[in-house]
């Protein structure tokens, strides 16, 4: 193929223009269409689109098409359509001026010269726009977004708290103990004292009913063993779960106060009462 090009270029040496085109044969594939080629030719002529000699442009274009054929390059249909348009423009230019005017008068606004120039100007603008987009594309490759470490692990923000409390945790302890006891028969190890949870429920309800409110720590003051503490604690949890009791903490890290739930019945000692 390359050898063929050389031969073709040699054969048409008579035309300096065509020889020059041969030097630019690498451009064949770059021309996206006839408009692209026309803009290239205009640029080679170093003239403004509005000042281009269309007759001369038509000649060059057709020469180029011929050259492409010489090189056995497939000439797309669009190029041939443009070639015929240019031939038409060229033939019109050759007519005397008065006859040209007559033609224009017949089909106002259809002046093919104007249509071609308009098309070229418009296409040229979009080629420029494409170049700007290309610059933006390249620029984006050089821009790195800030992607900070995840906040959860960072020192700046507290981690979100799960929607659970220490009471949920203790309830879980309770469940584990009970289930474990059932399964292993090991409940005795914990509940082998004289105390049962239900007894402690009675005890707590009595204390609360009698005094209206009781401090959390007071419930444990009389406990003789750790298992009694556990029983008391589990009883307390059960009462809270059954909505018989509520607990409140007056101040942070202060003692917790246990009182009967406002809606709990019977309302023996209902109502807020401070000891």
């Amino acid at each position, binding site marked *: 193929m390359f050898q063929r090009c050389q031969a073709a270029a040699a054969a048409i040496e008579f035309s300096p223009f065509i020889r020059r085109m041969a030097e630019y044969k690498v451009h064949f594939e*770059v021309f*996206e*269409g*006839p*408009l*692209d080629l026309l803009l290239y030719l205009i*640029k080679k002529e*170093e*003239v*403004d*689109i*509005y000042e281009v000699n269309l007759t001369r442009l038509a000649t060059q274009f057709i020469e180029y098409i011929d050259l492409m054929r010489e090189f056995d390059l497939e000439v*797309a249909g*669009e190029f041939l359509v*443009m070639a015929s348009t240019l031939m038409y423009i060229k033939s019109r230019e050759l007519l005397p001026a008065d006859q040209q005017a007559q033609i224009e008068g017949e089909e*106002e*606004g*259809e002046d093919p010269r*104007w*249509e071609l*120039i*308009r*098309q070229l*100007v*418009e*296409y*040229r*603008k*979009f*080629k*420029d*726009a*494409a*170049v*700007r*987009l*290309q*610059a*933006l*594309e*390249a*620029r*984006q*490759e*050089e*821009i*790195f*977004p*800030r*992607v*900070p470490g*995840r*906040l959860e692990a*960072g020192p*700046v*923000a507290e981690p979100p708290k799960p929607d659970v409390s220490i009471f949920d945790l203790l309830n879980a302890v309770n469940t584990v103990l009970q289930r474990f006891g059932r399964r292993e028969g090991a409940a005795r190890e914990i509940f082998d004292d004289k105390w049962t949870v239900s007894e402690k429920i009675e005890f707590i309800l009595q204390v609360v009913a009698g005094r209206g409110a009781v401090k959390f720590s007071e419930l444990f003051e009389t406990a003789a063993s750790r298992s009694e503490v556990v029983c008391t604690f589990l009883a307390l949890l059960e009462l809270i779960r059954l909505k018989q009791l509520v607990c409140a903490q007056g101040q942070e890290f202060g003692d917790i106060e246990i009182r009967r739930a406002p809606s709990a019945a019977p309302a023996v000692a209902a109502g807020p009462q401070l000891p």
Partner: protein
Amino acid sequence: MELKSILESLLFSAQKPLSVKELREVLANAAAAEDAEADTRSLAKAKEGEVTAALEQLAREHEAAARSYRLACVAGAWQFVTQPEFAPWLRALVGVKARPPRLSQPALETLAIIAYRQPVTRAEVEQIRGVNVDGVMQTLMERGLVESVGRAEVVGRPQTYGTTALFLEYFGLRGLEDLPAADELRRLSIEKPPAPVTAESGLATTPPEQLALENKAGETKAADSSGKPAAGDSPAS
């Protein structure tokens, strides 16, 4: 606490670009927190306009500070990004950015036409480029830069095409109004011709004497890209 500073701290800490809508959600959520203080609550109902204005003020401040990063708005979402000249070091730190291959010249031209003229039919694009664009259109659609947006109210009701949010992201544009020389390139299709002189609807029909290449900067760039000196390309007129 100033709204502007709060937005800055949020964008500074966010893992992804945040839209005005998302930022307002964060403000509302912060105000809804149990322990929210008065100034936190007072921003719960910050208006869209206020937030946008604060963001733009922030972006100006960072631009003026001329540091190695800036606040950018891309496709409607705000994010801190580094300046391009630091890319060599950032590549050494985080590696080469994973990006699809660069677009070809035909693809860029077609994309430019669609971007400026949307909604636009395939025939209109071909009219401007002077060639068939089937293959290129398919590439652009596959890459998610272009999408079908409706149908034109002309014979045959052909599909019309427009650019996507990804298009804005790919080129780092805030919105379509951010496209360079947008007015000039859109004008031709938007302005009605004084008299219908051509058959092609939607195409320019400005009389020849009004046509002018007014975008010198763009021209220079075009000349540069072809490796030819700009001087010869467009003589002073």
